[in-house]
């Protein structure tokens, strides 16, 4: 974890409300592990003070990139920023995905919308190529399928309106694949909480290990404020653990879903 002023190299609209931001961060980039995030301060934001957490998408040389959706005050201002401008980043943060060892499990990645970006490095660094299951509402919400295909991964798409891939939720093609075989497989997921919960239930049903990247409202990003906690099993009961520090990636079996959205 380091804090640096990072320079914007590119900040382009990919599709619809989605943008790809490339940052020059020579000291941060080499440290990034799959599933980690950057906590970004947008200095232009004056009345909204807090940093915004973003999953790290790709790492190339001395840069890392972020795929973000324009959803609120922060990302609105971010979308207007141009190459050459700077941001403050604290990164890399959090405990990410465990990359399977060579000859180990075959990863099945499950992504909801731009949650797919958080799994790119895992796909790139996994010695075994696997399958990415990605779901979204519409075709436009499926963002980086080609990036995964270029890595030699199979991509199975599901959209709720049927505009791309199979019609329905991402968990349907995932279930079909798990019914075929579960041997030597491991699930990794990133997306909205209801999707994570559904993946967690499938993992339990099929007895497949699963790592889920949890999304909880975050404030400091480094473990001091205790805003981003989720319920995690502990002894006979549960305790709150920090998504920013003990997570964002948790073993699905450890998560207590009661009390999650």
């Amino acid at each position, binding site marked *: 974890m380091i804090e640096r002023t990072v320079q914007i190299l590119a900040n382009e609209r990919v599709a619809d409300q989605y943008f790809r931001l490339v940052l020059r961060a020579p000291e941060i980039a080499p440290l990034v592990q799959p599933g980690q995030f950057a906590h970004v301060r947008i200095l232009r934001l004056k009345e909204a*003070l807090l940093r915004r957490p973003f999953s790290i998408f790709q790492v190339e040389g001395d840069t890392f990139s972020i795929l973000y959706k324009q959803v609120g005050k922060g990302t609105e201002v971010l979308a207007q920023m141009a190459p050459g401008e700077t941001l403050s980043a604290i990164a890399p943060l959090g405990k990410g995905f465990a990359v399977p060892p060579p000859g180990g499990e075959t990863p099945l990645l499950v992504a909801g919308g731009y949650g797919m970006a958080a799994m790119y490095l895992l796909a790139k660094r996994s010695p075994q190529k696997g399958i990415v299951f990605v779901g979204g509402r519409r075709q436009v919400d499926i963002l980086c399928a080609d990036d995964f295909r270029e890595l030699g991964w199979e991509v199975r798409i599901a959209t709720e309106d049927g505009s791309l891939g199979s019609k329905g939720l991402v968990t349907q093609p995932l279930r079909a694949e798990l019914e075929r075989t579960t041997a030597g497989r491991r699930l990794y997921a990133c997306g909205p909480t209801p999707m994570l919960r559904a993946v967690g239930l499938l993992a339990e049903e099929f007895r497949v290990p699963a790592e889920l990247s949890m999304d909880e409202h975050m*404030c400091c990003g480094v473990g*001091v404020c*205790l805003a981003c906690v989720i319920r995690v099993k502990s002894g006979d009961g549960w305790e709150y653990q920090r998504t920013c520090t003990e997570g964002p990636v948790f073993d699905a079996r450890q998560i207590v879903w009661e009390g999650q959205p």
Partner: protein
Amino acid sequence: MNLSVQLGSLQMQNPVTVASGTFGYGVEYAQLLDLNRLGAVTVKGIRLNPVRGNPTPRTVEVTSGMLNAIGLQGPGVDGFIEKYWPFLRSLNVPTIINIWGTSVEEYAEVARRFDAVEGVGALELNVSCPNIKEGGAQFGTDVNLLRQVVSACRQATRLPLITKLSPNVPNIASFARAAAEAGSDALSVTNSVPAMAIDSETRRPRLANVTGGLTGPCIKPIALKLVWEAARAVRIPIVGMGGIQTATDAIEFLVAGATAVAVGTANFYEPQTAFQVLAGLQEYMERHRMTDVRELTGSLRAGP
């Protein structure tokens, strides 16, 4: 140039500390900051037993600030001593331990436990947390209860006691005097301001706890006035806090009557803030040809 200040018998190498609850137990920031450059590290509130805290969402951003209702999640006295104290003890700067309880007896017991721990810098009595059902704010908004808490802790320890006053009182001077008379060595002014936020679309509160504490730059003018009023009421030193994000903010608190300052919410978005405040304070003193930071304390001039 002298930057050192004293809170009772607590010596600080400079007047800049951090506000309880915004800095964890120090160790979380050790990778980003040289903690030994602070005046003191102030840790999150500890009661006797571990505390789970409130359900989420626990924080929400608002214009120029934020609300929190964490609920004082914490490891309890034993958990703190086991897990965090060895690291804090290894620092060259003092640790101020923020403590709380749900009864006068519990406050005193926590104070007694820390009295037996070697190397504690001071205890800050949290009598003003708005986010817990029992304890917290009630001790800070009833002047008789406040007096009881402070005097019970006074009898339980020889450590410097800093009483953290609530902003939510009609007349802070009487609370400041009660704390001082009961044996408090210093005051922290102030805590978060009770507040709430609502989502108009869903018509639901934005915090699971419904209400929370407002902090950040938006509360600075409120906090400044409270420091000014408290400083006129007592002779004990005051740690000023509430929305400090620059050296200018910190200097205003000193001028209003604070001896030291604490950076709070700004730590969440800029962990370097305390050091920026310190650098800016030194620059200001040079520019105003001051040789001792204590010249600033209570130096408010009359009239606009």
